[in-house]
């Protein structure tokens, strides 16, 4: 990376610095965005967060968050000074791990106040809700674009092993995102079966689907740009980094405004309907949330459930489908590494 011009280093440093600030802001505000009876991934009485114990736990969590983030920042700056801008990603990792430690410690403080979540489950038996905007026609768009891109390269004799590997890894990411999109339509367990809360939840799921679809198009357009730009493809990739950051920023702001499961959304016409309005959490038992982040419940058929900490949905790691999605996401960056390794072994054997 050291052969790159100084402005490229600057772009990388500013983008990663931005991600670090965004991450800190996210960890700062997110405990306030969950449903009223979930606090640091623990089911609590709905008014708990306003009581003195709840306020005190939040205050302590934020103090720890500031201290740990400052420590991470020091390590980040020292690392960059010592090892160059390449260390920036390591600094980010330190910050994320530190933030999770603060979160986990807060969760341990909330656990003594936990109450059993509701055991009532409801299901609507009639009707089908359209979740994916534009349906499967829109979802197939990125794959078509990728095929067109590959065909263009092939017809113009510009295909190379590096480009092919990049397109294959992009296809892997697309398959994972499409699986997620399908999951949002079919594998999510709704918290509410009716009323305005149900309407909000559906709107939220449609929004998350639209974001996933937009991410598919973004990944495809980025891949096409990188493989089609004739020279200095690596610089093109660096140029797209801030764009990716802006995309993530917009997504986080939109989801934060909507609240967990769309709980902060206006219900529109449904507001007039008598609301069941009693907060009922997310109907997942606390004991199946490992570290408050990973959901592992073999008795729950849902592949996606509402996150306990964060925005959007979390995978149920007790379902094999969840692992297929994870493997696909992990495989995408591994494909280029394996390709390089194969090439290296091939060269050394000769």
């Amino acid at each position: 990376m050291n052969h790159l011009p100084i402005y490229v280093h600057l772009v990388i440093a500013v983008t990663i610095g931005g991600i670090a600030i965004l991450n800190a802001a996210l960890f700062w505000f997110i405990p306030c965005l969950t449903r009223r009876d979930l606090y640091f991934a623990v089911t609590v009485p709905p008014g708990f967060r306003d009581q003195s114990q709840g306020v005190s736990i939040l205050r302590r969590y934020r103090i720890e968050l500031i201290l740990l983030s400052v420590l991470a920042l020091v390590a980040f700056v020292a690392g960059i000074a010592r090892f160059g801008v390449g260390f920036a990603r390591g600094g980010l990792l330190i910050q994320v791990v530190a933030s999770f430690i603060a979160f986990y410690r807060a969760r341990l403080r909330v656990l003594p106040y936990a109450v059993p979540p509701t055991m009532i489950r409801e299901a609507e038996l009639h009707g089908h809700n359209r979740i994916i905007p534009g349906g499967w026609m829109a979802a197939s768009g990125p794959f078509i674009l990728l095929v067109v891109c590959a065909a263009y390269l092939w017809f113009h004799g510009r295909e190379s092993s590096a480009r092919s590997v990049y397109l294959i890894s992009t296809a892997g990411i697309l398959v994972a995102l499409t699986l997620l999109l399908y999951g949002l339509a079919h594998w999510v367990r709704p918290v509410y079966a009716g009323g305005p809360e149900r309407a909000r939840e559906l709107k939220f799921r449609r929004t998350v689907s639209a974001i996933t679809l937009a991410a598919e198009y973004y990944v495809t357009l980025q891949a096409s740009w990188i493989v089609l730009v004739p020279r200095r493809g690596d610089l093109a990739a660096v140029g797209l980094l801030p764009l990716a950051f802006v995309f993530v920023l917009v997504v986080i702001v939109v989801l934060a405004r909507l609240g967990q499961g769309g709980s902060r959304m206006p219900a529109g016409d449904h507001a007039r309907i008598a609301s069941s309005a009693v907060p009922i959490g997310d109907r997942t038992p606390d004991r199946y949330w490992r570290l408050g982040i990973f959901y592992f419940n073999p008795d729950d058929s849902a592949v996606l459930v509402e996150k306990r900490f964060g925005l959007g949905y979390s995978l149920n790691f007790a379902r094999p489908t969840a692992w297929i999605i994870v493997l696909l996401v992990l495989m995408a960056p591994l494909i280029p590494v394996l390709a390089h390794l194969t090439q290296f072994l091939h060269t050394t054997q000769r």
Partner: protein
Amino acid sequence: MLRIDLASRVPVYEQIANGLRAELVSGKFSPGAKLPTVRILAIKLGVHYNTVAEAYRQLANEGWLELKRHHGALVRERDRPQAGPDAMERFSRPLRELVAKGLADGLSPRSLAREMTETARRLEGEPSP
């Protein structure tokens, strides 16, 4: 709307079968209508697939549903079966027990009578007063 209570002593598959039977008896599903697939209903209720499959099998054995692999469950046209000699006793005994439990839980005889009258009205298709 199907509602189950995971904390109840009644097995979950039985609660699902009872809830679905109530919907079918009320005529909310006409013959030929499709029920949600086992997978979808299990996801919505947050229970294992086998639990829902067991409930569907029970209803299929009673003649309410026709199960088709990969196509969910279809509601069947069902003739009213001939009641056996002990059918009324099998109905009355749990009803008497339920009334006794309601009284033991503090419900007034008047409120129980009102609830049963309401149920009887719905059964005969009369509108509520």
